[in-house]
């Protein structure tokens, strides 16, 4: 949008429109640059720690971390990124952009290898194939007893996250569809109750939930945590799914049923494909939430064969932090990677999730 500022001509002589437009354009780009600089500045405290974690995991050895590696790497990467973003905003042709990008990438990689290449190593990732890593570092038995292999924790996390996601998808889509399509008695009351539950903080119920799990014998089992996690987020997901179902026109369902499909077929073959974006969004979100859960698993899971990744990382950090930063950082990177990848690749689905809408 080209902005032209209209100013009252001061003199009866014709104003120099071009000069005015140029000045406004200049002011505009200066303003944009200032905004960008602000965004860059406030984002540094977020990006830098993640990068620091990666660098620790790749360079630290038992006993210490050297900090100059971080700044050397930054000194190479930051100019490269800056140059590329300037090129990206100035050069319109995608081909040229790609070429410059690759060129810069090559230069940056060469520089990195030349400057800090000999410092990088994957020793810290040895927890992936060695089990007693913590005991080795501390050279004694640890407080929590034997550390399980990281793969057990990984598998538990995966089981927990996947089964939780499946429950949420099934239940939320059925409920969402039902609420969206059917008039049943008490529908309004149910919706309002659901809404209150959605706003209600489940964290406050952690003590009674603990007691209920204890009484029904699901304490210290993955299944118990799975049910609890699925439930406390359920109202939110029901609303999200209802929103998606509301957006599906009734006509296509009606025509499917006119053509002889049963209600169930119409739901499965016609309506569900229409809300696939919603299903994916809910699934990804639910998976990430379960993957990162800490408080509930910390409280409800005790034995180390039931550890999930967050507990594994917590106890590793608890035991060797200060002695060996590298291992802790490596476990963190390993743990954060799945949710990060999901987040990056499914972002366009996640942004389509809205709930209800706020009075506006």
């Amino acid at each position: 949008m080209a902005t032209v500022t209209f100013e009252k001509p001061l003199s009866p002589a014709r104003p120099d429109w071009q000069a005015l437009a140029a000045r406004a354009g200049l002011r505009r780009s200066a303003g944009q640059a200032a905004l960008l600089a602000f965004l860059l500045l406030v984002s540094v405290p977020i990006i830098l720690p993640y990068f620091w974690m990666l660098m620790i995991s790749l360079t630290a050895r038992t006993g210490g971390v050297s900090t100059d590696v971080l700044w050397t790497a930054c000194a190479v990467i930051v100019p490269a990124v800056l140059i590329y973003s300037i090129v990206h905003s100035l050069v319109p042709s995608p081909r040229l952009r790609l070429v410059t990008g690759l060129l810069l990438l090559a230069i940056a990689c060469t520089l990195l290898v030349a400057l800090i290449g000999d410092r990088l190593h994957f020793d810290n990732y040895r927890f992936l194939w060695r089990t007693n890593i913590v005991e080795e570092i501390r050279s004694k038995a640890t407080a929590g007893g034997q550390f399980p292999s990281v793969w057990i924790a990984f598998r538990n996390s995966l089981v927990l996250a996947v089964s939780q996601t499946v429950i949420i998808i099934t239940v939320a889509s059925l409920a969402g569809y039902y609420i969206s399509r059917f008039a049943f008695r008490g529908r309004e009351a149910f919706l309002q109750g659901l809404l209150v539950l959605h706003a209600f903080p489940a964290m406050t119920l952690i003590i009674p939930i603990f007691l209920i799990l204890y009484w029904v014998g699901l304490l210290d089992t993955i299944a118990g945590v799975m049910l609890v996690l699925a439930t406390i987020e359920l109202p939110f997901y029901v609303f999200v799914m209802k929103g998606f179902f509301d957006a599906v026109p009734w006509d296509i369902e009606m025509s499917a049923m006119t053509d002889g499909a049963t209600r169930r077929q119409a739901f499965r073959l016609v309506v569900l494909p229409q809300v696939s974006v919603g299903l994916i969004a809910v699934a990804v979100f639910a998976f990430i939430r379960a993957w990162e859960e800490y408080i509930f698993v910390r409280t409800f899971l005790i034995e180390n064969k039931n550890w999930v990744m967050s507990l594994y990382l917590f106890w590793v950090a608890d035991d060797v932090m200060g002695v060996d930063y590298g291992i802790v950082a490596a476990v963190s990177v390993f743990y954060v990677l799945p949710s990060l990848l999901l987040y990056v690749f499914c972002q366009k689905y996640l942004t389509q999730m809205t709930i209800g809408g706020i009075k506006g």
Partner: protein
Amino acid sequence: MGPTAILLFLFFLAPVAVDLGVAFTDMGRTLAVSSFTFENFERMATRDTRLLGALGITAVFVITTLCIFNVTFALLLALVTTSVQRQVGAFFRAVWLLPRMSPSVVYALLWLWVVDPNERGLLNQVVVHVFGLPPLDLRNNHPLLLVILANGFIGASLGMIIFTSAIRSIPEHLFHAARADGAGSLAIVRHIVLPALRWPISYMTIHQTLSLLVTFEYILLITAGGPFYDTTVFALFAYRRAFENGQYAYGAALSLVLVIVGVVAALALWRLMDMKQLLQSPRIEVH
């Protein structure tokens, strides 16, 4: 429909009832109930001296985090990211969502590495080498500041998302009209954007107050409520009483207070939601 109702009943309504019941018992470390008593509430009201401190810390924590990050800074981010190029704005919003998407244990570890009291901490590298100051030890000397920062960096992102979509839904022609009338960028923000954000802002304020009141995950991970009780907010106080000291009944009584606060706030939020859209009548009037 059935499964939803069952799950919600089991893990939402039943816990409230259980909490209500257990709060009036003397359940201790053995999880056995021997008698019913009002002692927990009496203790809360008169004898627990630490409780008052926890309440004060909670107030400081919630109000500061809310005012600086979850509303103000979120608004700022939403305004700035919507006034730069679309892709650039989306990129920076993604960056700010990163902490919310990464596991809480990892996020807490990042903060521990940042504020590491020796010279290797990320913050201290800057403080010592750039400014030439002695190394800081935030975790022991300014623990409350630390937990406020850690929660704020996460809290800002939700407000940012909500405000961004609210700004996007303002009709474009209003901006053009204002420009044609000679309004500057700040005047547009003041007279067009902010009035349009009135409801989202009040919604976010209540919502975030509530979630800050009950949250203690990052505090538990970063400072564990310490040193001593210096960062133990009310919710964490209840948690520690129950799971560290084994006073389950007292913890239940404490969280009953939070449950009541939660219900009240949830009802308030409910007034702010767009009920007409949520309750729009179903598409099919059959059973």
